[in-house]
Structure formats: structure tokens, C-alpha cells
């Protein structure tokens, strides 16, 4: 199937999903939970350190409060939905600055304004970075910007491969100090015409990894992204880097934020999770002396286009995920399973399958293929093609004599109440290479929601179920094949045949 076929078929989903989604939407402009999530668990004010020059503290940044609904998963460990009042703070400047005043005025406006437009307002692209929902909001934004002599942040460029290739266009070689022991992978980000940017990535330091959102907003623009924190669970402290840059740390049990009020820009680094690496150590990795300037629009356009092409090329690489040996292929699977552990942890209702392997000549061409089994069913068949592994479609198969396979219905039927069976052989055409897909259908069977059985009369792969049969006939067909046992082993005990 192609991605276009998939995209188009998403139109055929049950309408109720769309209706449910529409009815969930909150009627008023929402706060930026991004920062809420980042600092939601923080506590009280703790002013530490003092001395040199200007030390930022939360009180100087606070622009108001916001009552927000809390879903059970908004606060880890909490099961109680409800509301909470959060402190809203500027991520652009301290009290008295135009950026602060503009932020405060915008917050007050959005909290009192009930939007008049539809749910979907198609704004001018220069407003895309803002949470605007109608023309009145756009007019107010323009009014505030004019009042405080700030510019609209503008339509962004996107980088989707490696932001280190875009940063030089802003006059920034690296977000990290030259001697930093950390590594920063920043695959995605947005860059604005004036030099403001925000990027997303992973910081690796001392064997730990943290997700980071790095935001640098120029002081000549207004941006409507604010910070939100629960003052009951927040700690703040000041820290001055070894090269003399004063920072504000906001810390919680599971997330942290570093703020730096610089001469030409305001830098915010949102870190989730920070692991047990001290924030001081993380802060020392970053170069807060950067002074990003406006990128050359033509160069930025070219970089965005190149980024898109690189993505396209990567996805077009037919050898991606193919390995020269089965051993390496299996190692990939084991690593992927480890990654999936995160998903399993978040979805306790899901039980991961028991994964085993076996070698078996699936298509009868004299060469054994690697079978990956989930809970005893063949989930995928991997052959070697052109000296590298070649994985085809996935199945829920059991093997039978004479190289027959039956694709049995899984736990979740294709259509609620329906059970589909596919009896087939793999073609080999005397080809020593097993390469999917090349099933030769013997027959497909279906038990519909009313309990009626149907079969295909054609061996075309996607033939319709056009002939009604009795259950006895269907069972006779399924039972007419003799299962063969496979010698399976856990992936962790893998060895080449």
C-alpha cells in the first residue's frame, strides 16, 4: 500500500471519531500546556545565589494566572481531574520591558475574549505561529505590537533533518559550548524571519538523555508563548555559568527549565526528563552568548527545500533497515523491543507478544528463511536478497504441510464480528530468493457478523467473498491441512542456521 492510499482511506474512518473529537474541543483559547507540562510540578520560590549584576526571578516574569482543567494524566500519579490555578510567566522579558508588557496585555485580552470565528480560522501565514482564531485577535495582536514597537514574528521555515545545518544561517555555529561534553541532536525546528527560533531534540550527557525544547525569541518581536507553572510544586533558583551568564532554573521532580534573559533575545530551554544529571551541569553545556541574526530568506528557503529532499531521499532508501546478516537484523528487533518498552509502560492494558524465531523454507525453494513469531504465530518472514535481509509483509500465520500457510484472524478482527482466513502458498518460481509479497491464494474464507461463512471463488489476492458456504464446509477446508511444528527459540538465543 502507498502512503497516498493510506491517507485517502483515512477519510473512511467512522464518523463518530470526528464527532467525538469536535465535541471535546474547549470553547476558549487555550493556554500553552507545553510549558505547563514542563513545569507543572514545581514548588515555591527559592531564590538562591545573588551577587553579580542582574538576577532573574519568577516574580519579574509573572504576567498573571490561569485556571486550567487538569486531566488525570496532566500530573503524573494524580487520578483526580479538576482545575488548578497556574502562574503564567513571560518567556520574553522581565517586568518593565516592552516584551513583558505586551505579554501581559495579550494574556489579559485572550482571557477575557470569546472568539467569534469558527473552530478553524484560516489566517494569513504571518500569523501562523500565534494562537489566533479570528480577525479580531489578529487586529489586537497588531495593535499590541504597534503599541510596544514589536514586530510580528512571521512565517517560519522548517528544518526536519538536522538543525545544525540551519543554525549557521542565523550566525550560530552551535547551541553548545565548543568544549561541552554533551551531544545535541536537533532533528526538527522552526526558524523565524527575524532570527528567533525554537528547536526540538535530545541532549546526551553523562550517559543520560533528555528531551529538550530550545526557544530563542528576539526582543524585537512579540510571541504569544508563555510559561505556566504550579507555584505549589515549583522550585526556582539562580545560577551563574562559569562564563558569567546569569540563569534562572525552574525545577520539578520530572522536568526543568532554564531561562536566560540576554541582551537581544530571551532563551528558554525546556528539559524533559532531566534524569539525574544536575541542571547546573546541563546549563554549562549551552552557549548562552549566541546572538542569532535574521537569516537570508533565499538561503533559508534553499535549506528548507534541501531538508525536505533529504527526508524524501531517506525514506526512499530501499535498503533502510536491511542488514547483511540475520544476526544484525535480530539485534535491531531486540533494540526496537527495548524502545517499545516505553510504550508498553504507558499502555498497561497491552501485553507485548512473546517473540521467538525459527528457520523454515517458507516457499519450498530449498533456502531457509527467518521466521519471526509472535505468540507462536508467524508475524514476519525475512529472506536474504542481494546480500541483505529482506522483510516482507506481516502475517498471523501457521505453517502446514506442503508449504501451505493459513493466515488466521488475530485478536482483533478486521471488521467487528468478522473473521477472515487466508489459505495460500508462497510462490517461488524457482527463485532462490524469498521476496514478498508473492502469496498464491488457494482460498480466502470469512465468517461474517451473522455467523455466515463465505469463500472466494477467485485466487486473486484481493478477490471478493462471493460464495456462501456452510460452516462445516469451511471447517473442512481449514482442517484439511496438516500443521507442522516449528523449532522456535527466543530472540535472545538467536544463532544463524
Amino acid at each position: 500500500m502507498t502512503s497516498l492510499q493510506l491517507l485517502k482511506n483515512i477519510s473512511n474512518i467512522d464518523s463518530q471519531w470526528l464527532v467525538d473529537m469536535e465535541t471535546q474541543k474547549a470553547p476558549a483559547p487555550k493556554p500553552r500546556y507545553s510549558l505547563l507540562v514542563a513545569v507543572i510540578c514545581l514548588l515555591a520560590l527559592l531564590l538562591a545565589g545573588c551577587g553579580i549584576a542582574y538576577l532573574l526571578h519568577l516574580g519579574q516574569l509573572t504576567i498573571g494566572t490561569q485556571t486550567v482543567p487538569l486531566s488525570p494524566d496532566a500530573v503524573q500519579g494524580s487520578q483526580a481531574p479538576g482545575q488548578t490555578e497556574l502562574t503564567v510567566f513571560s518567556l520574553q522579558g522581565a517586568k518593565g520591558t516592552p516584551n513583558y508588557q505586551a505579554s501581559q496585555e495579550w494574556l489579559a485580552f485572550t482571557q477575557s475574549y470569546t472568539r467569534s470565528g469558527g473552530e478553524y480560522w484560516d489566517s494569513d501565514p504571518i500569523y501562523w505561529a500565534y494562537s489566533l482564531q479570528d480577525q479580531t485577535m489578529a487586529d489586537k495582536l497588531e495593535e499590541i505590537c504597534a503599541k510596544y514597537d514589536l514586530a510580528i514574528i512571521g512565517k517560519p521555515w522548517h528544518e526536519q533533518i538536522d538543525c545544525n545545518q540551519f543554525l549557521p544561517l542565523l550566525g550560530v555555529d552551535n547551541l553548545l559550548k565548543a568544549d561541552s561534553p554533551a551531544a545535541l541532536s536537533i532533528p526538527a525546528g522552526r526558524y523565524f524571519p527575524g532570527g528567533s527560533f525554537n528547536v526540538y531534540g535530545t541532549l546526551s550527557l553523562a550517559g543520560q538523555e533528555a528531551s529538550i525544547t530550545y526557544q530563542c525569541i528576539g526582543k524585537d518581536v512579540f510571541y504569544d508563548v508563555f510559561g505556566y507553572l504550579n507555584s505549589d510544586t515549583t522550585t526556582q533558583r539562580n545560577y551563574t555559568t562559569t562564563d558569567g551568564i546569569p540563569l534562572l532554573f525552574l525545577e520539578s521532580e520530572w522536568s526543568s527549565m532554564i531561562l536566560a534573559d540576554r541582551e537581544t533575545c530571551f532563551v528558554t530551554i525546556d528539559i524533559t526528563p532531566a534524569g539525574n544529571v544536575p541542571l547546573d551541569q546541563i546549563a554549562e553545556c549551552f552557549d548562552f552568548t549566541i546572538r542569532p541574526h535574521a537569516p537570508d530568506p533565499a538561503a533559508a528557503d534553499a535549506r528548507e527545500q534541501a531538508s525536505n529532499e533529504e527526508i524524501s531521499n531517506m525514506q526512499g532508501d530501499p535498503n533502510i533497515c536491511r542488514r547483511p546478516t540475520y544476526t544484525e537484523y535480530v539485534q535491531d528487533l531486540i533494540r526496537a523491543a527495548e524502545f517499545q518498552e516505553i510504550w508498553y509502560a504507558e499502555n498497561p492494558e497491552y501485553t507485548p507478544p512473546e517473540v521467538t524465531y525459527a528457520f523454515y523454507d517458507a516457499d519450498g525453494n530449498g533456502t531457509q528463511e527467518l521466521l519471526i513469531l509472535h505468540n507462536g504465530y508467524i508475524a514476519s518472514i525475512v529472506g536474504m536478497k542481494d546480500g541483505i535481509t529482506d522483510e516482507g509483509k506481516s502475517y498471523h500465520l501457521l505453517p502446514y504441510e506442503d508449504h501451505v500457510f493459513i493466515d488466521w484472524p488475530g485478536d482483533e478482527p478486521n471488521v467487528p464480528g468478522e473473521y477472515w482466513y487466508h489459505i495460500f502458498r508462497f510462490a517461488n518460481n524457482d527463485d532462490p530468493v524469498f521476496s514478498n509479497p508473492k502469496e498464491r491464494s488457494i482460498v480466502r474464507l470469512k465468517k461474517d457478523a451473522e455467523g455466515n461463512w463465505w469463500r472466494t471463488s477467485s485466487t486473486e489476492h484481493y478477490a471478493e467473498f462471493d460464495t456462501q458456504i456452510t460452516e462445516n464446509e469451511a471447517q473442512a477446508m481449514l482442517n484439511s491441512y496438516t500443521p507442522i511444528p516449528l523449532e522456535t527459540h527466543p530472540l535472545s538465543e538467536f544463532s544463524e542456521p
Partner: protein
Amino acid sequence: MDDNEILDLYFARSEQAIAETDRKYGNYCFYIASHILSNPADAEESVSDTYFSAWTLIPPRRPARLSVFLGKLTRNLSIDRWRKNTAGKRGSGETQLLLDELADCVAGGQSPETEVLRRELSAALNAFLGKLPERDRTVFLLRYYYANTQQEITQKTGLSANQVKYILQRTRKTLASMLKKEGLQ
């Protein structure tokens, strides 16, 4: 005007039905079309096609939810128009990004578009959506049904850009795994 009244106009073959549809759902349809087609003129054409299709299909059909019916028509017509516009070359805009992202989930070979495949796929997608937590489902639909940008999703859901990105990555991975399991990849 109430949806039933608009539908009555269609059934009465009154052209006022188109005007009322445009008044009530014009912005909604244009929103969907403009996220798939980056050219506003194309989006407007697509919305016009939607009205024509609705005029052709109603009657005999009487959609239970006119908004969803029109939205699906607009989405399909816009994707068809996008495909026609970009035939033989790599496309651009948000739709190309969507396709690039969804490429992670599919094997890439052209499958025949039979009713059996469509049914299998829509059933699989419904099962997939049913398993997603509500928040993840919303993010998935905003991205892959309404073709919202990630930035728009952050604005609509209140999630951070990182969270949206992570949720989309995770749901694509889950979708890929499910499609693979169902032999639909």
C-alpha cells in the same frame, strides 16, 4: 439554518441548498481543502466540487451529519486534486509532508483499490483509533484527517510541540505495526 432544513432544500432540489451549505460549512470545507492544497484557488475549486458532489449525492443520500459528510467529500476531492496537480512529480506543502510521515507506516507498493481492501483498511483504522487514548486520537486526526500542521495542533490541544511530535511518532509506529500485523502494509 438547521442541517435538516438544508437537507430538505437538497431534497426539494432548491439551489438555495448550496448557498446555505456554503454559508454554514463553507469555512469548514475551505479549512480542510486549504490544508491539503496549498494554493487557495485550488482549495476554493475543491470546495466548489464538494458542493457539486453533495448536490449529486443528496438525494438519495441523507447524511446523518452533514458536516462530517461534507468534510469527507472535501477531503477526498482535495486529495484527488492534489494528486492530479502533482502527478509525475514530487508534491509539496503539508500534504507531501503527511505522505512522507505516513510512508513510515506502509510498505510503499501500489495495492489494488478494491472494496475488500478498503473495508479491511477502514476496519483496521477504526480498530486502531479505538485503541488510542483520546488525546492521542485527537492529535492523530488533527494531523492526518484535517492535515493540521504540528504548530496548529499545539495551539488546538495545548500540548507542547515535543509532545505532539512524540505522540505522532508513537501513533505512526503503532499504526505501522497494526497495518503490518493485518497484512495491509
